[in-house]
Structure formats: C-alpha cells, structure tokens
C-alpha cells in the first residue's frame, strides 16, 4: 500500500453518525414534507373534480340546448309545411274551379 492509497482510505473510512441523528432528521424534515404532499394532492383532486363537473354540466347543457333547438326547428318546419299545404290546397281548389268554369264556358 503506497502513500496515496493510505491517504484515500483515511479520507473515505466509515464513520458512525452522531447519537440521535436519524431521529432529528426525521423529526425536522419528515412530517412537513409528508403533510405538504397530501395538501397539494387534495387540492389538485378537488380542482380536477370541479373542472370535470363543470365540463360535464357544460357539455350536458349544450347537448340539451341543441336537442331543444332541433325539436323547435322540426316543429317550425312542420308548421311551415302545414301552412303551405293548406294554402296550396285552397289555391288548387280555386284553380280547379276556374278551369272547370273555363271548360263549361268553352262548351257553350
């Protein structure tokens, strides 16, 4: 073993920790660290739950609005077609009657 190796061994030799070192470390750092993580996780979970709920409500509202619009639109369309059909029937009856009168006039 040369001089260099002996110096290296002295520098890296195992040394026992002072009495109560581990307990002091845990007492000082452990509880604070653990509590902070729980708080953060709890808040993140609450926010994501609220965001999810809001998104679901918004999506549900939009779907319902679109469904109502569709129903109202279909009803308006049906009413429009009914109005045009009634108008058409009356106009057609007039045309038919005029054509009939025209034919009768032509015979005389």
């Amino acid at each position, binding site marked *: 073993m040369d001089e260099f190796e002996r110096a290296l061994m002295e520098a890296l030799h195992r040394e026992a920790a002072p009495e109560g070192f581990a307990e002091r470390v845990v007492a000082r750092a452990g509880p604070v660290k653990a509590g902070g993580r729980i708080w953060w996780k709890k808040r993140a979970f609450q926010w994501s739950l609220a965001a999810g709920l809001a998104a679901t409500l918004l999506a549900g509202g939009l779907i319902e609005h679109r469904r109502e619009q*569709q129903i*109202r*639109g*279909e009803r*308006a*369309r049906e*009413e*429009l*077609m*009914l*109005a*045009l*059909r*009634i*108008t*058409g*029937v*009356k*106009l*057609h*009856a*007039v*045309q*038919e*009657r*005029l*054509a009939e*009168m*025209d034919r009768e*006039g*032509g015979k005389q």
Partner: protein
Amino acid sequence: MKRILGAFLLSLLLAEAAMAQRKFPAGIEKFAARAEETTDVSLDKSMLNFASKFLSSREQDQQARRIIASLEGIYVRSYEFNKPGAYTAAEIAALRQQFQGPGWSHIVSVRGKGSDGDTDIFMHLGDGQIKGMLIIAAEPQELTFVNILGPIKPEDLKELSGQFGIPQIRSPKNAQPEGKSK
C-alpha cells in the same frame, strides 16, 4: 276644415296600415267557439328563418325555402265544424268587406256549387308591388283564412298550387279572376 280633413286622411292611413299588418280579419275568433277543431299556424319572419334552417335538400323543402325567402310571415287559421251552418253568409260578407279598402285588390272570387264552398283571394298592393295575399275559403264545414305577408310572386303561387302533394292543373285559358262567380 283643413285640420279635420288632415285628421281624417291620417286616420285612414293608420287604419290602412293597421289592416295591412293584421294577421287575420277582425272578428274571426267567434268561429273558434263553434268549431270542432281549430288549426292555427303563426310564423313570423324570425320563425320562417328558423324553420328554413331545418328544411332538407328534398325538392319540396327546397321549394318551400324559395317561397318563404322574401316573406314576412305566414298565418293560417282553419276552423272545422261538425255540421254545416256554423256561420252565415252575412258573417263571411262582413269579413270580406274588411278588405275592400285602398291597398287591397280582390283578385279572385269563386262561388262554388254545393259542397265546393266559396273562395276569395285578396292581394295587398303598395308601391306597385304585391305586399301580401289573403285567402278566405268558406266551405260548408270548414272556414279557412290564410294571410301571407311579404312580396309573394305569381310563380310562388304556381308552386304552391302545384306542389306540397297537390297535383298541378293547367291554367285556364280565359280565366277572369275578379268577380268570377257562379
């Protein structure tokens, strides 16, 4: 004297404007009580626009779209009675009378035989243009009022009578619309 004349002319103009905007002839509500069934369709400009968004690409829907494009409203009221005699000829004459004033032209008057009924078509004219059309169809067991507001074109009428499930008939050669009655 001038003031009285001016007030009279103004009241005439206001009455005319009110008549033009009215959806149905005054006093038709009384028929509702006698009717077994009432059909009431009221579509103003915004509802017509809304309804047009839900029309399909089918030919009939496209025709409806073309017809309503420039219209301001379509109003239909139809009363069905369970037996004839639910209204008198005088009541209908009073309704027709409401559209004899300036701005209205009585273009067709068809008096039917038996169950045919009578039909009158009035055009609302202004500034040299058609501004609307009113139909009064009085059949023994049915009374129908149709009011179309807006510039309806003659070709629209042709489409109306020839489509919507109704077979088209050829136009009469010597039709004399006004006052043609039997």
